[in-house]
C-alpha cells in the first residue's frame, strides 16, 4: 500500500425524494488498500457504491479517480476507466455459459480485440478464482459460492484499478468464508485496490486496512477496523440508543 489516494470522495450527497441516502460523505482510498465500508442496514453503504460505479448520479460532490472527477459519468465510462463491481444480488446471465459470463467483463474494454485471445483470457480469469475448467458449464450448474466466484472473475476481467465488492462474502458458510477471504487477499496482492461493503465483521477485521462506518447517510467514523469498532458512536449505531436509566 502506498500513500497516494487512487480514489477520493469529496462531499458526496444523494437523496431520493425526501430521503437523504448519502449525506456529505468524504474519504480517500489508498492504492493497494482493502477499504471497508460498514454500517447498519440502510446507512447508505450500497448507495455510496452505486454512486462510485455510476449506477446513480450524485446530487453533489466529487469522485476523483486518480485525480479525475468521474462523478455523474455514465456507468459504462466509469467501468472503462477502471472501476469494476460485483452485485449484492448476483447478476449472471443464465442462458450464457460460465466462460461467456467472464467474457462480458473483457469484451467491452477499450482496445480489446474481438478474437480467439478473448476466450483464452477469460479462461485465465476463471483459473484465478478457482473455476478453471468449468468454462463450458451452465451458470445454473454452479453452487452459490461458485456463482459468487464467477461474479468476481467477471469483475476482475476488467482488470480494474478499483474493485467494488458489494457484500460478496454474505451467505457463505464458515469454510467458504475462509476461502473467500483468502481469495480477496490474493486479488489485492495482484495490486488491485478493493472497496468492500460487508456485514461479516470477522472478514472486516482480518482483511481491511482501514474502514469507514456510515450511519443514516453520514460518515461517523474512519480508521483501522479495531479502532472504529470500539468507537462509542459506532457501537451506538449498531446497538441502537444507549440505555438511559
Amino acid at each position, binding site marked *: 500500500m502506498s500513500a497516494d489516494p487512487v480514489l477520493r470522495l469529496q462531499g458526496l450527497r444523494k437523496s431520493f425524494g425526501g430521503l437523504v441516502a448519502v449525506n456529505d460523505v468524504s474519504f480517500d482510498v489508498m492504492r493497494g488498500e482493502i477499504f471497508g465500508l460498514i454500517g447498519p442496514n440502510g446507512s447508505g453503504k450500497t448507495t455510496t457504491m452505486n454512486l462510485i*460505479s455510476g449506477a446513480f448520479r450524485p446530487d453533489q460532490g466529487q469522485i476523483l479517480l486518480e485525480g479525475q472527477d468521474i462523478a455523474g459519468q455514465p*456507468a*459504462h465510462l466509469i467501468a472503462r476507466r477502471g472501476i469494476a463491481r460485483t*452485485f449484492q444480488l448476483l*447478476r449472471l*446471465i443464465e442462458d*450464457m455459459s460460465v466462460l461467456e459470463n467472464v467474457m462480458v467483463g473483457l*469484451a*467491452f474494454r477499450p482496445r480489446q480485440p*474481438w478474437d480467439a485471445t478473448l476466450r483464452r483470457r477469460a479462461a485465465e480469469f476463471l483459473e484465478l478464482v478457482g473455476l478453471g475448467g468449468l468454462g463450458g458449464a451452465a451458470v445454473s450448474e454452479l453452487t452459490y459460492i461458485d456463482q459468487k466466484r464467477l461474479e468476481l472473475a467477471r469483475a476482475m476481467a476488467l482488470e480494474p484499478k478499483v474493485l467494488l465488492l458489494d457484500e460478496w462474502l454474505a451467505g457463505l458458510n464458515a469454510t467458504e468464508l475462509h476461502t473467500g477471504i483468502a481469495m480477496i487477499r490474493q486479488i489485492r496482492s495482484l495490486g488491485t485496490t478493493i472497496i468492500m461493503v460487508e456485514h461479516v465483521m470477522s472478514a472486516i477485521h482480518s482483511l481491511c486496512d482501514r474502514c469507514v462506518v456510515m450511519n443514516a447517510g453520514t460518515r461517523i467514523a474512519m480508521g483501522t477496523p479495531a479502532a472504529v469498532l470500539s468507537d462509542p458512536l459506532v457501537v451506538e449505531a449498531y446497538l441502537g440508543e444507549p440505555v438511559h436509566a
Partner: protein
Amino acid sequence: MNTTTLRPYLAILAAAGLLAFTPLLVDSFWLTLAIGTLNYMILATAWGQFSGPTRYVSLASVVFFGIGAYTVAVLGEVLPWPLVLLVALLTGMGMALLVGLATLRLAGIYFVIFTFGLSEMVRQMVTWYEVNITQSMGRYVFLDISQETIFWQLLGLLTLVLLGAVALHRSRLGFALRVIGGNEPMARHFGLEPTRAKLGLFVASSAVMALAGAIMAPRWTYIDPAIAFNATLSFQVVIMAMLGGMSRLWGPLLGALLMSILFEILGSHFPQAFALLLGLVFIVIVYLLPNGLSGRLSQLLARPAPDLSLKEPHHER
C-alpha cells in the same frame, strides 16, 4: 479461418444457389406463393435478429416495409431501380433512427406501445399528405419487373440477411446484444453502452424491411396508404418469428414457411377466420412453445431419452 468457421456461410450460399432455380421449375401459382414466403422469411429473420436477443418486441415492421413500398410508388418511374432501392433503404434507416433514438432508452414496454401506434400514425400522415398536397389517394406502380426477377431479388436479399446474421452472431455486437437481453443494467457496469448497440441493430433490421417492401411493391400495381401500412403485417411477422423461435437462425424461416402455407390455405377457404387463427397461434406459442419450434426441437434433440428418475430438481443452494 478454417472450414468450420466458413461452413454456415457456404451452406447458406449453396441453399440459395439451389433455390435460385425455382422460377424455372414451377408455375405461376407456386411462384407467387414462393415470393410471399420469401418476403415473410426476410421480415421474420430481420425482426428476430433485433427482437430475439434484446427482447424489444417491435410492432413497426409494416412501417418500414410500407416506407419501402411507397418509395417505389413515388420514385419507381423517376429513378433507375438500384437508386430507388437505395432511397428506400436510406429512408427506412432514417425513420428507424428517429424511432430508435426516441424509444430505445426506455423500458421495453414503451417501445412496444410506441411501435404499436406508429403504423397508424404513419398511415394517417401519408393519407393526409396525399389528399392535401398531391390531391390523389392511391398511386399506380407500372414497372417492368417480372415475377421471376422479384423472386431472385428477394432470394438475394434473404441470402444477404442470413449471411449477415451469421456474421452478427459471431461479432462483438451480437455478443453485446445477448448481454443486453440477459441483464441490461449489469451490462453498463462492464463498459457496454446498450442504447447504441440496440439502435444500430434496430436500424439495420429496419433497413432490410424497407428493402423488402421496395422489392415487393411492383407486385401490387396499385398502392394506397391502407394497403402499404396494414398493421396486421407487423403482427404476422412477430408470430412467424416467435413460432419458429429465435434461438436458431432457421427458426424464423421455419415459422415463415409454416404460416405462409397456413395463410394460403386459410385465405382461399376461410378468409373470415384469419384473425381468429392468428389469435389462436399466438396463444399456442405462449403456452406450448415459449421458445418456438426451433427451441423445442433443439431441446428434444439434446435430450433424446427423457429419464424420469432424474425428474427431481436439484437444490444446490
